[in-house]
């Protein structure tokens, strides 16, 4: 996913903190379409990947 602060593209599966600027993200602030960290484990959590948090 792309960090909203510094624009660095990082792998959210390693953690929802941008390794470059240290910005932390959580599921209330970003959509599943932007992140996809849990898509491999819980495919249904993101509302079939429509970008809406449930």
């Amino acid at each position: 996913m792309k960090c909203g602060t510094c624009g660095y593209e990082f792998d959210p599966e390693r953690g929802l903190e941008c390794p470059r600027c240290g910005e932390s993200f959580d599921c209330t602030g970003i959509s599943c379409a932007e992140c996809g960290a849990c898509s491999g484990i819980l495919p249904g959590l993101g509302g079939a990947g429509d970008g809406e948090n449930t």
Partner: protein
Amino acid sequence: MTDATIPDTGDADRTVALAGCPNVGKSVLFNELADAYVDVSNYPGTTVDTTVARVDGDALVDTPGVYGVGSFSEEERVARDILLEADAVVNVVAAPTLQRDLFLTLQLLDMGIPTVVAVNVMDEAERDGIEIDVDALADRLGVPVVPTVATEGRGVDDLRERLDEATAPDETPIEEFFDALPDDVEASRAEQVLLVEADEPTAEAVRERAPVVADGGAPGFVGEDHRDEVYGHRRDRVDALVDAVVSEGDGPPAWSERLDDLLLRPLTGTPLMVALLGAVYYLIGDLVAQRLVDFLEIVVFGEYYVPFVESTVGSVVPAAGWAEPLHFVLLNENLGLLTVTVQYLLGVLLPLVVSFYLVIGALEVSGVLPRLAVLTDRGLSRIGLNGRAIIPMIVGLGCVTMAVITTRMVGSRRERLIATALLGLAVPCSAQLGVILGLLAGLGLVWWFGYVAVILVVFGVAGVFLDRALPGDGEGLITELPRLRRPRAGNIASKTASRTKMFLREAGPLFAVTALGVSLLDYLGLLARIEQSLAPLTGAVGLPTDFGQVVVLGLIRRDFAAAGMTGMSLSAAQTFVGLVIVTLFVPCILSMVMIVKERDLTSGTLMWVGSWVVAFGVGAVLAVVMGL
């Protein structure tokens, strides 16, 4: 390494680069170190170009605000090239965002670049109850660390004195990653760091020097996964460092956070912003336009200046014989060079423009203006722009020419094109807005809100049209808001003084030449012919033929056009339509030059012609609606 412009540092002893993340006060510190004030903006990423100044025999080079040394954007590539060539670096970090900013610091030290760290904005950290053990930070980093408050000049002398102590540790933990590189790679320590971070331009440069070093002809020396690992490792080091040197007290004062929340929520932010627009209207429209400008126009110029000039110059240059054309050009009642031109420039434009600069400066410095833009962010994404486009739009309210340059930071070429077109079409500059407010002040608050609504609708419709007409998709939102701050009078005054100086330097001669040209056209009877040829257009928008002169003035600068309307007797509806047309009309000459330079001649020509069509098209619709 790239074709970025490395500034010419002349015969300086050393090149010292100033590097830091966006919004850490780097530009202010640069000006303080260089003992010269350049216009300072509060938004993230304003420094797109580099600037050079002298500090005690060294050349100080300002670099674009970046979060790390890399090649993820044009700004980063420029910063990387300068940092690789610099003899030393002043790394500016902000005390309240140390955890974010120290990543770049550790990267610079990993690269072995001699560095002095300036921990800036210490006052805000103190107010927020954040304590930073500067000595411990210096010990752990192994380089000098100087606390500063650049806006007040605190710590700047100390920083200047310690520039010679810039250093870097001989070894840092990054070296464990160098094993991933081929043994025979010919690269400096800085380049090795960039190689293990999968920086492709560095890999290309190293490969060009020694084409056989990489295994199997892979595009880079390591994969991008490796970069995540290096970054993660450095981030862990930053976190440990911050844990060791930062302690937090009782937390920040609640006012800024509460106000921030209120401004950013649409339900509360919208009425607050509407109230703000109303306050701006009363401040400029009522106080400045109705009182100060009226006083200047009626008393100072009407009763004293113009009669004095007419009698003095009239006695030297007679209105007959050989001197008659000169007399006309200097003193005619339409746009005489020594009478009405001076009155417009100093009695109308200057007070309105200065007061608007003050307001815009206060909104910028306090961080309110970017929040106003964020409120409209959802709208921006619907017209094919990302959040970064907010910045040029805000800069455009100050000066469209400058804003066109800042469109460089707006994602793709497509978005830059949309942003430039919208700037040229529907973003009035502060000089123009000042005069427009002055004219609307005589009509009432409802006309001001009506004007804002019409311009926003045109902005939105034009954006949607461009978004659908141009091929491609928009990019995601990348933006960062500066903190809300109590505006400092000194900063606002400096900004206003610097902008006013620029305005007078640019607008003064241009207005004089324009007035001279218009007076000559008038004398030769050509102005009447131009006005007659524009009569179908001015008639279609319900305005008198002499509005043609406003159109001619608008070809040079839109604020001249607005100022030209002050001398016309128009009804309220006509004034309103005229001001909408003037706002949507072609960008000023300097903006056009910049648009052609930044985009291309075809785009510039299309925007110029399009402005005519939109301005008079919207004017015609309004004229019909208002029964003109």
